[in-house]
């Protein structure tokens, strides 16, 4: 709100008086700085999009600079014919949906009692949670635990071990504590509303904004995760998209193809490169599409989190 005011004021000022020389230099400099920053951020992204819509030969000959060259969809056809990519996509959607569901349920049912004013022992429970933020068993003991629980090569190894992110729990707790008035609880209690009923008919409906934030944070986390899958999955048919991407984008890039005929090699190379660009786009677009809808919640969530991290 205040920012708006500030801005109106500055705009009004501009109409009244010409800028001083110092100010003109200042604005030129910041526009140059911002221009350079935005270009370095956006150019690689544009390059990838353009490459993915170009022909294999144009990509391997390095003719793509800014816009697509020889517009073609060959890269995308290849991506959607790749069985690994398709199964990876399906798996990732499954893991993301199930994982986010578990995350949000667990986080909310933990946040509600921890936000309550009257719960005896609350401080102790809070300490139990926050301590795991600063100290944990580490990679190997966790791996042994997952193995001993027979969760290797199952979906549960991906969705259960990180079921609650303590950071997100703090955000949710702060939200429930600060934006649902205590009077509401007292009124409900007077009318004989139980804690359980209060949660389902008051807290949950009033927490839509924070649930949106949690869904966003958790879903992006699951979509982009590769580490747990990399450790706990051996069965290729269960690999999420990010592991398939790792194989195609990174692991194979060091090996040279062993084809001798230079023309075939060039065509193959072009196709392989094109596939990579298309794959980057296909795997990233769902997250990017989600973003504008939840942008306001996202910034809000970051801010709640920073108040008490």
């Amino acid at each position: 709100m205040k920012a708006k005011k500030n801005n109106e004021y500055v705009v009004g000022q501009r109409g009244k008086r010409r800028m001083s020389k110092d100010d003109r230099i200042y604005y030129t400099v910041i526009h140059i700085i911002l221009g350079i920053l935005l270009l370095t951020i956006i150019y690689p992204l544009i390059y990838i999009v353009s490459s993915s819509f170009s022909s294999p030969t144009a990509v391997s000959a390095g003719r793509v600079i800014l816009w697509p060259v020889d517009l073609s969809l060959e890269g995308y056809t290849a991506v959607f014919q790749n069985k690994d990519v398709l199964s990876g996509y399906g798996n990732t959607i499954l893991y993301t949906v199930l994982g986010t569901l578990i995350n949000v349920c667990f986080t909310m049912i933990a946040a509600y009692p921890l936000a309550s004013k009257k719960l005896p022992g609350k401080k102790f429970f809070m300490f139990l949670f926050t301590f795991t933020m600063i100290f944990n068993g580490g990679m190997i003991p966790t791996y042994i635990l997952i193995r001993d629980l027979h969760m290797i090569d199952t979906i549960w190894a991906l969705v259960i071990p990180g079921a609650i992110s303590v950071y997100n729990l703090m955000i949710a707790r702060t939200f429930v504590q600060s934006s649902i008035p205590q009077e509401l609880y007292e009124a409900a209690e007077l009318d004989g509303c139980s804690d359980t009923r209060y949660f389902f008919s008051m807290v949950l409906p009033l927490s839509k904004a924070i649930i949106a934030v949690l869904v966003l944070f958790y879903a992006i986390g699951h979509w982009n995760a590769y580490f747990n899958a990399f450790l706990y999955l051996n069965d290729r048919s269960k690999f999420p998209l990010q592991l398939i991407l790792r194989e195609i984008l990174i692991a194979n890039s060091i090996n040279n193809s062993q084809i001798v005929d230079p023309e075939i090699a060039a065509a193959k190379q072009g196709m392989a490169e094109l596939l990579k660009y298309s794959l980057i786009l296909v795997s990233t677009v769902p997250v990017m599409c989600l973003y504008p809808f939840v942008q306001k919640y996202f910034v809000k969530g970051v801010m709640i989190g920073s108040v008490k991290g």
Partner: protein
Amino acid sequence: MKSNTAKVAAPRKKGRLMKRILSCWQLYVFLLIPLIYLIIFCYGPMTGLQIAFKKFRAADGIWGSPWVGFDQFTKFFNSYMFVRVLKNTIVVSLYSLIAGFPMPIILALVLNSLRSDRYRKVAQTITYLPYFISTVVLVGILTQMLNPRVGLVANLYRMFSDSEMPNIMASPSAFPHLYVWSGVWQSMGYNSIIYIAALANTDPELHEAAEVDGASRFQRVIHIDLPTILPTASILLIMNCGNIMNVGFEKAFLMQNNVNIETSEVISTYVYKVGLGNTVTDFSYATAIGLFNSIINLAMIIVVNTITKRLNGNSLF
């Protein structure tokens, strides 16, 4: 669990406390599932840390393996890898801190002084975009751009030079730069959110008064905007210092190859290799290395937390 905590909280008012506990039994039921999860998956692995002091044998399990005291730790401290992984970890994270800390502040100050709301919104949205790219894709983009045969950089390189471009991804000296600057590229916008919010709360009267007194926009940035975000910035800086030994596994591992290993092997990737990645694995040794790292992290965070408590009167956790 219930009665235990109750005793800790207030041993004398037992009767009243029991009543209070009983009155909110439903809340404890809510907390039950998260607590079971927490105990199994967060505190469970901590009991496994004992194998750092044991010689782990698969047949005997965690509890049955024989104790060896600090042998695993002395083995690590005496190994030639100790200095290397410690140095790499510190180089990468210190460099990240030095390069990554001022950038979001500069970005926030620049965005804040824009006069067009629309331009500001568009610019902000663009700077957030890379944050949503996964680590795998980020490293994939890097590999692709720097590919010595078909990458973007190679194409530019050929315009200015006849020689073949070196493979930057496989260069040990380039690893820290690539790691750090790709990180800055990815998270600069996201990290600036908190500063932009702090700047939005500046009292507009300060700006008005300064302008009446003839201060230029740049002077107002230095004397009004910068002091506004200084408290936030100093807390974040101190907090980041607490994480100085904490270099994540994911990105370093993906950027690693046989050639750049001498600068890209950090503690977390080494733990993985010793414990799970190699053909001959050693759970105890890997756990000991990981525990060594965790303890330093814990100590740093406690120190940092004490400092912030002194500075602004409230602790971070």
